[in-house]
């Protein structure tokens, strides 16, 4: 068990060992070394003393050097010593001069080297400066390149965009062209339809007229005679003849002009009818092109005022009313038509048939004016 107290066995053993060691190691030698040290010190002291005394003796002898041979011997020894010392001195001097020259050459070399170094350093400085300049230039060029690349990219993008726009517009154009074609086609179709329709209408109208005439004829055949009394004739030629004779009996006095004051083309085809209006300024012409044209004249020239359409056959004759506000025309489609002059609008269409010397009038509408 642990205890606070060391049992002394090992301690005593160790103590004995230590004491033995001391006996062996130090006891024998301590005194010896001590004595040795003393002797050594004595010896050193004696040596120093000896040196001092010998110096003194030499000094003493230097006063009596001529008196005894021993002193002469001493002198010779001293002279020899002096000689050897002088030789040594010259040797040392020579060595010293050699060293000095060596030092000079080395310093010269050193200055050369330093000059070289300075030159190299200046060169280095200039090339460093050049290098810096070139670096600057490089960076500048690089920035420029970057700018150009950016603009290039921009242009490319724009081109791309425009290309896209172009393709879109092209597409649109194609589409519109297609649409246009389609529309034209439809229009043509519609126009054809309209023409068909018009034809159909005309046919219907003609048919209707014919039916009407037929009916009127039947009615007339049943009832009284026509307003204009004509001598009865069996043939159509008789009817014509009677017209002519009628015309000749109704003729009034007239002057026939010989020189034309003004000549111009008025219709595409033949001009079948011409008539002055009561205001003596306007006149109307009718031609085989189914158009009635209104003209205004100022004595020398004629100006086209209006084209009246609506007739389906060549215009055979035209006539103004007494006021000059209405215009009557006949055409080869068995119809008479009435227009108002001011607004050039068709007012009335009258179908006229001449059957067996009787002139029958079939009205479509009765609006204004009186025939």
């Amino acid at each position, binding site marked *: *068990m642990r205890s*606070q107290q060391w*049992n002394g066995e*090992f301690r005593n053993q160790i103590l004995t060992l*230590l004491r033995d060691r001391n006996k062996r190691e*130090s006891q024998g030698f301590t005194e010896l070394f*001590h004595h040795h040290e003393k002797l050594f010190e004595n010896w050193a002291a004696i040596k120093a003393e000896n040196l001092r005394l010998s110096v003194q003796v030499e000094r003493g002898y230097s006063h009596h050097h001529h008196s005894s041979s021993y002193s002469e011997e001493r002198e010779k020894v001293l002279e020899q010593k002096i000689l050897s010392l002088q030789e040594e001195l010259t040797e040392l001097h020579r060595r010293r001069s050699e060293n000095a020259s060596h030092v000079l050459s080395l310093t010269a070399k050193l200055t050369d080297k330093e000059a070289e170094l300075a030159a190299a350093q200046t060169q280095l400085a200039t090339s460093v400066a050049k290098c810096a300049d070139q670096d600057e230039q490089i960076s500048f060029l690089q920035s420029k390149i970057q700018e150009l690349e950016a603009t290039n990219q921009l242009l490319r993008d724009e081109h791309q965009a425009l290309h896209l726009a172009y393709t879109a517009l092209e597409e649109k154009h194609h589409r519109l062209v297609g649409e246009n074609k389609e529309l034209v086609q439809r229009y043509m179709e519609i126009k054809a339809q309209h023409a068909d329709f018009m034809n159909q209408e005309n046919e219907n109208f003609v048919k209707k007229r014919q039916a009407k005439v037929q009916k009127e004829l039947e009615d007339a055949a049943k009832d009284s005679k026509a307003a204009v009394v004509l001598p009865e004739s069996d043939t159509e030629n008789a009817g014509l003849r009677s017209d002519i004779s009628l015309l000749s009996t109704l003729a009034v006095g007239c002057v026939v002009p010989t020189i034309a004051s003004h000549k111009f083309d008025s219709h595409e085809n033949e001009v079948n009818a011409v008539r002055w209006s009561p205001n003596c300024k306007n006149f109307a012409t009718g031609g085989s092109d189914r158009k009635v044209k209104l003209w205004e004249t100022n004595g020398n020239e004629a100006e086209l005022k209006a084209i009246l359409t609506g007739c389906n056959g060549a215009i055979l004759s035209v006539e103004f009313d007494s006021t000059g506000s209405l215009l009557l025309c006949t055409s080869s489609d068995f119809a008479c038509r009435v227009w108002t002059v001011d607004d050039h609008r068709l007012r009335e269409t009258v179908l006229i048939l001449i059957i067996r010397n009787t002139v029958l009038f079939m009205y479509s509408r009765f609006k204004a004016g009186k025939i």
Partner: protein
Amino acid sequence: MSLFTSRPANRKGQKRIRMAEDREVLREIWEARLPVSFQLAQDEVVTLNVPEPFYLMVPRLLYFPLVTDKVRKHFIQYVSPEASGREIWLSDGNGQPIKWNYPIGLWFDLFAEGALPWTVTVHFDGYPEDKIMRCSCKETVRSQFMSYLKEADALKHKGQVMNCMQEKDHNQLWQGFQNDKFDQFWSVNKKLMESVVGEGFRHIPIKCYTPEKLAIQRIVKPIDDTTGTWTTLHDALLEFFPTIDFSTVRVIIHGVEPPLGTPVQWLSEHMSYPDNFLHLSILPSAPRFSYFSTPSLSSPSTESGSRVSPNSSS
């Protein structure tokens, strides 16, 4: 014959602190001297006169740079002028440069094989810087000494005692050590040897040295964990060399071979060097000298080499 008696606990029942009190042993350790004969290396003599060897009784506990002033003064007149300005270094009888940071007694035990007086050669030229450090002044020795003290205290008391000490205490330790003043040194050092009664230090500051490998250090506890008794020297050495054969080696400290049954706690308190470390030399048993009474075998040492850590020589 024991002069040491335990002190009973005081009235309050606290444990009293126990310190190294065995003055006899301490004094014997302190006053140990070795006879050393200093000789100048023969190839460095340039004068006609052959220098005499310088004999000196050197304390076992000191370091060489502290005792070589007179030696240098004596030999300086015999060397060339350019060498005379240099630091001297020493080599022992085997030609090995002596590391100055080892206590003199330790080196003697390890390498000198007991030959007396110990012949040490003094050199001025060719300082072997790859083998030993430079020691330009005594401050270097002091700083190493203090660092060892701090290390030992760290192992023993976690560094608390040294840290609580003032600068003047440190100075007193150094001055007492350097000037061979036992009372001056031990008045401070006894504080470092304090420990709780019955428990000892936390760890024992201990280093082992063999002629092949120097400065091996291991963790050694003063009390054996398994048995609860004080760790003996025998057990501590097993910590260093598990396969050691005690019949083939000698364990030497301060020139003596302590019994293997000695508690390491007692050894650390009484037989440490002034730097508070136990520096043990492990030598093969040789027929020339036997420090202990048992007969020694002449077989070479069998310390294991693989478990030993390669500490750099301090």
